[in-house]
């Protein structure tokens, strides 16, 4: 009885420590920071803005940003400032792959699809066909149209800014409690399975041992 009690108490202590550890760790979840760099890019006018950050919002400062076209040619490169931001004029009206390399082996990429800036970019040089025709009919100046488009773009950028910010903030969130508790569950399940398999081997070995003794 006495022999039985001691190990049970110490296992209890170990489990208490684990439980305490999880309780301490859980409140930190809302402000969790992880070990992964994120990239987010959006278009305003003819400029692409890139932001690099670690989950939880820490900025990825002085990180290398490279921009590639779909053919894999590097179009330009630069480094993020102290806010983790970098911006550049649209170099080519194709899908742009933005690769951010932070120190210590962290790297991630983000693709800005061509449709994000095709209309913005084409408006000053060549207005869409239908507009040009109607412009001729109504004898309005094309410059007015492009001015109008510019105004609409600016207004849209302004209106969309909070939405873009919301998206950026949402992407900064770290792992959720579901993922953390789920992970712990996987670990226990996995090692439970290992125990089960090992116990079957053990039993089989014992059985074969018994049989050889009988025989």
């Amino acid at each position: 009885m006495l022999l039985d009690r001691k190990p049970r108490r110490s296992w209890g202590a170990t489990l208490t420590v684990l439980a305490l550890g999880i309780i301490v760790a859980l409140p930190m979840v809302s402000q969790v920071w992880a070990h992964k760099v994120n990239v987010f890019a959006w278009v305003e006018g003819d400029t692409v803005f890139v932001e690099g950050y670690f989950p939880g919002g820490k900025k990825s400062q002085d990180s290398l940003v490279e921009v590639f076209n779909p053919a894999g040619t590097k179009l330009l490169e630069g480094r993020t400032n102290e806010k983790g931001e970098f911006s550049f004029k649209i170099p080519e009206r194709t899908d742009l792959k933005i690769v951010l390399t932070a120190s210590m082996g962290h790297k991630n990429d983000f693709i800005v699809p061509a449709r994000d800036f095709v209309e913005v970019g084409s408006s000053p040089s060549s207005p869409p066909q239908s507009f040009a025709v109607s412009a001729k009919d109504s004898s309005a100046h094309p410059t007015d149209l492009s001015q109008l488009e510019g105004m609409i773009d600016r207004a849209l950028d302004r209106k969309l800014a909070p939405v873009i910010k919301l998206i950026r903030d949402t992407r900064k969130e770290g792992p959720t409690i579901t993922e953390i508790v789920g992970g712990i569950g996987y670990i226990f399940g996995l090692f439970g399975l290992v125990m089960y398999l090992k116990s079957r081997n053990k039993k089989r070995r014992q059985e074969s041992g018994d049989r050889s003794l009988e025989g």
Partner: protein
Amino acid sequence: MHISEGVLSAPVLLTGAALTAAGVAVGLKKMDYEKIPQVAVLTSAFFVVSLIRVPVGPSAVHLVLNGLLGLVLGWAAFPAILVGVALQGLLFQFGGLTTLGVNTFTMAMPAILCYYLFGRGIAHKHSGVATALAFACGFFAILLSSLLVALCLIFTGESFLQAAKVLVLAHLPVMVLEGVVVAFCLAFLMKVKPELLGATHAAG
């Protein structure tokens, strides 16, 4: 401590995977039936502790606890860290699938070294010496992991000294903190379950 996907070249990834496979094989062989629950508990600790960021320094760094895993589990730290890193990759998007081998090795190898270097010492009669050794174990494990990561990054064009400087400086607070954590954990284990530490080393 987790290297992202697409940073390392194929030979480095393959070497990491091969070394990890060997380590895990040894670990599974040495893992006794009675030890499995203990491995599971420490794997969970390793998995969760990576979410605790150390808010000092220029970059995102977190606790690792590989020193503690090595000290308590010995070679079983290899499968434990592999499972932990795999789940961190799947659920938290740390590292990646192709870098699983390299990332496991850079964290598990220092754990094994700590096990051999400090495993006997922490059972020292003088509690002051034991605490100092436990601290050194936590500290050294992170230092060595940083250097191993720097070594992997050489092949990407970053020079070793430059990469090592960044990594070691960024992890300096983590080293100190891990030293303290390992010292506290061992003091606690010595009180409530001293046979756990002694038995581990005798078995390994």
